[in-house]
């Protein structure tokens, strides 16, 4: 009974963390968002289903902290024409599951489904797919070591994607 209760509490903590990360993208607030990542953290949006490799196959995004830092500065640059328009998002995350957990290191892999409604330049778009978060436990809290975003239309014709999803 206790184990089950612990398990539910654990899942609640994880969900809470995923919601928090998503809330920074809703606004979007990249300064706070980056803080959710480890120093060696990466963000990946593949361009095909089940993409195995980010180096030998094209992706829509594949950023480490260096690229996140550049993107964070670019996002608020007054001369970035594509950033002249407000971006507002609403992320809904569900079907959260722990796919893998390592008790020794406190690291775990969490999968979830997401829908992100994005409003940008007078147009509302819907992105949907699956998140895979590799989380590590640091000082009692979570950090993201790797986030993978598999859009269901990753190999379709897409417009500009102005912000991380």
């Amino acid at each position, binding site marked *: 009974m206790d184990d089950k209760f612990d398990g539910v509490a654990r899942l609640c903590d994880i969900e809470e963390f995923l919601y928090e990360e998503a809330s920074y993208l809703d606004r979007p607030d990249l300064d706070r968002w980056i803080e959710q990542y480890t120093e060696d953290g990466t963000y990946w949006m593949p*361009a095909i289903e089940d993409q195995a490799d980010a180096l*030998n196959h094209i*992706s*829509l995004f*594949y950023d480490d902290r260096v690229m996140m*830092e550049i993107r964070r*500065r670019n996002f608020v640059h007054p*001369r970035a024409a594509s950033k002249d328009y407000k971006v507002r998002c609403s992320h809904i995350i569900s079907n959260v599951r722990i796919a893998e957990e390592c008790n020794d290191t406190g690291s775990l892999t969490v999968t979830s489904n997401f829908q992100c409604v994005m409003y940008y330049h007078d147009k509302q778009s819907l992105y949907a797919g699956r998140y895979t978060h590799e989380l590590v436990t640091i000082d009692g809290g979570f950090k993201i070591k790797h986030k993978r975003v598999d859009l269901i239309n990753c190999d379709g014709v897409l*417009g*500009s994607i102005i912000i991380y999803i």
Partner: protein
Amino acid sequence: MSYTNSEIDKLVTPTKIHRAVYTDPEIFDLEMKRIWGGAWIFIGHESQIPSAGDYTTLNIGKTPIVMVRDKQQQIHVLHNRCGHKGAKLVDKPCGKIGGFRCCYHGWTYRLDGKLLGVPHMAGYEGTGFDKEDPRYSMQKFARYESYRGFVFATLDPSAPDLKVWLGGAGDVLDNLCDRSPEGEVEVAGGVLRFEHDCNWKMFIENLNDTMHPMIVHRSVVDAANEFIKTLPEDSPHRIEAEIIPPFGASYENFEATGITGFPYGHHYDGGKSSIHSDYSVDPDYAAVMIEAYGEERTREILTFNTHNTLYYPSLTIKSAIQNIRIVRPIAVDKCVIETWSFRLKGAPDSMLQRTILYSRLINSNGSMVGPDDHTAYFRMQQGLLSQASDWVEMHRNYGSDNDLGDRRTNSGTSDLDMRSQYGAWRHYMLGEVAHYG
């Protein structure tokens, strides 16, 4: 209204273009018929269909096409339409088949498009229908040819040979292939398809527009430089730090790279130098190149440094980076730009990885470069609906192009590229000679 040739003639002068060229759906339809129906259009690369029965599909304008390899290893470019009721015969991006078979009534075709079988033929007896009539086979393009693996096709039976049409601009396709120690490239690493809310010409007019990078891409260059400054001096080397900052190169720098224009609307910027010239060379790559070609020839290959080369109207390549972009017009205010990457056969994996990195960093829908260009394009598309002026101007360095016979050259910040393109535009739309300005 429908345009007469004398009305079309008035839409483009050597220094200005009427806004209707970008905004009028009738002009778009005429362009599809006359330019896209007259020029050699890039269809694909032979490496996409290595064995018999392999096919790849695409659209040219609204026309569905299939490129397929037959059992004799011959490549065919066919209209993807059943001779019976018109259904597309294959409808995946690529695949492998023994022959074509329509999903509707089961008509079958050989890999070269010839009609083979029609079920229950008895009903056709005495009706005048003849299965051997080539009209019922899959229709072939008037001509298709391959140049070093790059397959082009044209609907115009009287088009010049592909090699003549490529002219001096073909040097850049050669350079792309020569950068492989085996002299061959192959498609690798997937494709990006980026929808653009603009006329297709706005994209190709930007390729050698060297007056925009320091404005449009200033934000990504600033962001990168600002962050690089915060890094300790002994930080690991990043290829990104070679790729991003040159987008902020000065006017003088771009001016010095030069633009070279050719008949039929092709052109490139750079040659001796470009924004790609200062990339570091992987020593393992240099070693296999020198082994294959010797030092002098290797130097010659690697120092022919163009930036963007346009094969008007459908294909643009970056030989120094080994990626290409393909133009797919959809409507007067919509097109899709595809980005493909190439592997240099016999080169270390690091070369393809650099190509992939470049495509992601610069050309991806999620990049910090492509979306800023795209913003400029759709603002032009919307701004040109204004009746404040009918004209778009292209005066830069007009009257000073150097005519070298088979090509013209001018400063890297000139509008020579625009004059080359609109020479070709007039050529296809009006049947003129394809040099202009």
